[in-house]
């Protein structure tokens, strides 16, 4: 029997991704389900410390370096890959599952990366593969969203790379360990990480892109990108105080925008930012308890958020693509199982006692209290109520209850039901019996979640916010509105830019741009004027004027040199 693994477990998922396109029928399903399980097996055979080295450029890479933290994240990533695969077996797109495997493999790779270069390589693999996951929805909206998504992530990647190169140049070491934000390089690395975490002002890529993926694609997307960001922050920047305000901002940003939102999966996407905010705060506080809490919360969050998005995905699939809360309602009659799953997920995200959210989030809150950070603790408590409002009640209420929308979709296929069942079981199981999770956290746990005080406080909080929801129901009614977010600046900007490019370069120059921001199009027109096929800088010049350039440059250099 093999008792240690000396290769990156991610390779199993990559191999699976490579095989899938060549298979069909049962063989495809078998490989699809076996690859994540094999990876999980490999994850637990990675011993502590550095297992293998690899020469790359002039550095020695340590692509597999195990410790408790890596194993925790790799475990949840592979569990997610397995359940997500089970959920998406009926997905028609041939591209989505292989991309999702590469995506998940990238996440597992980051979790085990012992050095910055390996981490960055897997990081970029994730960016490209997750873009492909969005693509595979095959709609026009998905295509455009994927374009914005990849731009944002490659931007983050470039920033991160500049930071890494800078750090390596300063220290001469590529080791990936705790860093201090005392120079430009580490700041750039932190910014690169935060872009993926969905921190301000880069939050909006997430709710922009995730809801555009297919009914199964969003489930994969919800798990990996932001949680690898949490992982690298845990490893690289524990106790960095700037993370507390950043995380708090994310918490409230997520709540407010989710409350204003109408698209059910966008509500859940905003709530990802909100939940990651809790983790970021935990990392910022930086005690053993809160770091444990952030790690545990990432673990449980992946499960209940995937469960919520699976129930939303089932609704989306079975209703034939209805996304808006205003068009949904009353589905609990015809989809009772899905509704139950959605409610369990909703309770878990609201950290209802005896669900997984309770045992993880309360660690962060307790950690803040222990550090006598009153305002942080207050904020977290208020935010818990807010989470219950937007995700705990709002999502199930508008989708499954509320009015009768007249829709009568049937329950989703068995494989989807099973995958939801697995995660629902984990949500409640970990809530009732958290010891297995506590046992694999990075630091020893002597925290007891179920004290009377905790439970009563939490129940009161939830009760009152629940009451508030129904009292204010008339104000909560979603209408067909569009909420403006920070991304308006770069989205609007980018869309105009893209449209200009397309229009100028396709032979059919169609239509005027009514909504075009004049100044911007003028700017692009100017760039086009100078750089377009007939522009100053790109047209075919008469030979004479080319020669003039050469002569001018010669004269200029002579002047320079003669000085």
């Amino acid at each position, binding site marked *: 029997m093999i008792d240690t693994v000396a290769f990156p477990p991610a390779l199993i998922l990559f191999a699976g991704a490579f095989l899938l396109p060549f298979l069909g029928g049962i063989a495809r399903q078998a490989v699809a389900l076996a690859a994540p399980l094999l990876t999980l097996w490999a994850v637990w055979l990675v011993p502590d410390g550095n297992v293998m080295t690899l020469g790359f450029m002039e550095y020695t890479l340590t692509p597999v370096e195990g410790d408790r933290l890596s194993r925790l994240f790799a475990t949840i990533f592979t569990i997610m890959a397995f359940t997500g695969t089970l959920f998406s077996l009926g997905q028609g797109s041939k591209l989505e599952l292989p991309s999702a495997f590469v995506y998940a493999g990238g996440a597992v790779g980051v979790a085990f990366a012992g050095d910055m270069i390996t981490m960055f390589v897997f990081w970029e693999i994730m960016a490209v593969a997750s873009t492909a996951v969005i693509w595979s929805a095959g709609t026009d909206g998905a295509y455009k969203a994927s374009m914005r998504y990849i731009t944002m992530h490659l931007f983050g990647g*470039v920033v991160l790379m500049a930071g890494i190169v800078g750090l390596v140049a300063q220290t001469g070491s590529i080791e990936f360990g705790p860093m201090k934000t005392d120079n430009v390089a580490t700041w750039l690395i932190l910014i690169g990480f935060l872009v993926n975490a969905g921190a301000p002002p880069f939050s909006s890529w997430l709710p922009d892109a995730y809801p555009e993926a297919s009914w199964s694609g969003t489930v994969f997307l919800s798990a990996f990108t932001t949680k690898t960001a949490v992982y690298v922050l845990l490893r690289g920047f524990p106790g960095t105080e700037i993370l507390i305000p950043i995380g708090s901002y994310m918490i409230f940003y997520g709540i407010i925008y989710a409350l204003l939102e109408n698209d059910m999966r966008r509500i859940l996407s905003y709530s990802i930012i909100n939940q990651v905010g809790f983790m970021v705060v935990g990392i910022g506080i930086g005690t053993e308890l809160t770091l444990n809490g952030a790690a545990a919360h990432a673990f449980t969050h992946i499960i209940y958020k995937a469960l919520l998005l699976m129930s939303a995905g089932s609704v989306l699939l079975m209703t034939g693509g209805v996304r808006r809360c205003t068009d949904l309602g009353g589905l609990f009659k015809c989809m009772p199982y899905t509704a139950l799953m959605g409610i369990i997920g909703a309770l878990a995200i609201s950290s209802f006692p005896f669900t997984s959210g309770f045992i993880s989030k309360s660690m962060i809150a307790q950690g803040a209290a222990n550090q006598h950070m009153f305002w942080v603790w207050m904020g977290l408590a208020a935010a818990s109520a807010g989470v219950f409002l937007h995700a705990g009640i709002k999502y199930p209420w508008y989708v499954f209850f509320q009015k009768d929308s007249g829709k009568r979709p049937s329950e989703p296929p068995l494989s989807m039901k099973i995958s939801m069942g697995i995660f629902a079981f984990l949500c409640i199981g970990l809530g009732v019996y958290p010891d297995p999770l506590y046992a694999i956290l990075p630091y020893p746990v002597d925290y007891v979640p179920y004290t009377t005080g905790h439970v009563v406080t939490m129940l009161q909080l939830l009760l009152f916010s629940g009451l508030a929801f129904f009292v204010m129901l008339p104000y909560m009614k979603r209408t067909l509105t569009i909420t403006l977010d920070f991304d308006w600046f770069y989205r609007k900007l980018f869309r105009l830019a893209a449209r200009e490019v397309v229009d100028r370069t396709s032979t059919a120059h169609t239509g005027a741009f009514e909504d075009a921001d004049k100044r911007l199009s003028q700017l692009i027109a100017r760039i086009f004027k100078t*750089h377009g*096929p007939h522009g100053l800088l790109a047209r075919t010049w008469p030979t004479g004027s080319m020669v003039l350039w050469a002569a001018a440059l010669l004269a200029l250099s002579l002047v320079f040199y003669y000085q």
Partner: protein
Amino acid sequence: MSNLIPHLPALQVVIPLFAAPLCLLAGRTGLAWIIALAASSAATATAMALAYLTYHNGVISYQMGGWAPPWGIEYVVDTANAFILLLVSSIATMVLIYSPASVAKEIRPGRGHLYYCMYILCLTGLLGIAITGDAFNVFVFLEISSLSSYALIAMGGQRKALTAAFQYLVMGTIGATFFLIGVGLLYMMTGTLNMADLQTRIPGIQDSRPVLAAFAFITVGLALKAALFPMHLWLPNAYAYAPSGVSAFMAATATKVSLYVLLRFTFTIFGAKYAFGNLPLHWVLLVPAVLAMFAGSFSAIFQRDIKRMLAYSSVAQIGYITLAISLASSAGVTAALIHIFNHGLMKAALFCAMGCIFYRISSTRIDAMAGLGRQMPWTMTAIVAGGLSLLGVPLTAGFISKWYLVQAALQSNLWWLVILIALSSMLALVYVWRLVEALYFKEPSPNNAAVTEAPLSMLLPTLLLAGANIYFGIDTRVPVAMAEHAAELLMRGQIW
């Protein structure tokens, strides 16, 4: 075999040189191809042997015909030019393997052997420029490679190819003339054409006006040959209208060789201290380089013809290389050499893939190739691999380039330069994406309904070149070791 080894430097140039008339005499396209391929393969093998020998045993000097310098012509091989020889000859061979089908389609019947004759002559010229240790001999080979490339470009099917070739001829000749004037001035002042002798004699007279003028003429002439902004205007048309194989070969090698000569003159002959210390060469190179990065990328974004788009992207990439040179540090020269190599791989793969598409649809316009991705999946794979490499995504050669470039900029404490590099590399995303979008997401045009994958003889070398972009993104030992060693030699300004 072993008695051939001392003569390897001569064979490097002589084999392809003699193959050229043989191609002409062969008279038949197929036979000429075999001769050209044999010669080019032999040149590749020679380059490999030379690279191995010089890397391990130090500089190799060879006196042509036994005539000692300064009267005779000396060939000198060190790691720097061995690296270039390796790149040029291996790309030439790959593209030759690729050529027969595209020549049959694009070159007028009965002229195929002339094509191979010119091609192998161009290779001779490029190899000669790189290997020679004699300043005047550089000019001779520069003309050999340029004249044959004018003819090759003119063989392109469209009539615009003739104008493009003519413009390139005028500009290339001016560049070469500038270079020759510079060499002439140096000869006047020092009485020698041998590079090693020039290196020892220049310091005594370095502030004299003729030497300054020589320096200006040589740098501007070479920058023109290397298509450094704003003297790049000849390049897009030349690459766009040339036959597919020629575009691939020239885009990957021709400008690179000029950049090598620039490195050789500034670092070895004039010396880094003189060029960058006494004279402000870093500004003269840095400003056009940064402008090239942006102007080239913006122009690429708006092109309708993909070969032109790639040509403009080359202008931007030459900007990166020049930028790295202008840092005048060991790290900078390393980055420049690595990018010379990696950019050769990217552009060879991408231009070959464009050739595959041209073979099927007789056009490289972006509207014409809408939706072709599904009909030509392997060509598409090559384009995606080359495109990712151009973007500098990890595990591709482009990433290695970017890494060393950013590192070099940081070692010179130029954070603002890192920001500019990052910004301009985002522009590459736009034009690569446009291509991917057209091939995958646009509605296929009905004209292309019957299009199938390109023939295997074209596809295989294209995929090999694309694969090289991945391979050298993972196993970086050879290029990095050679580039670092070469940079060390160049920085030391070692006397041959």
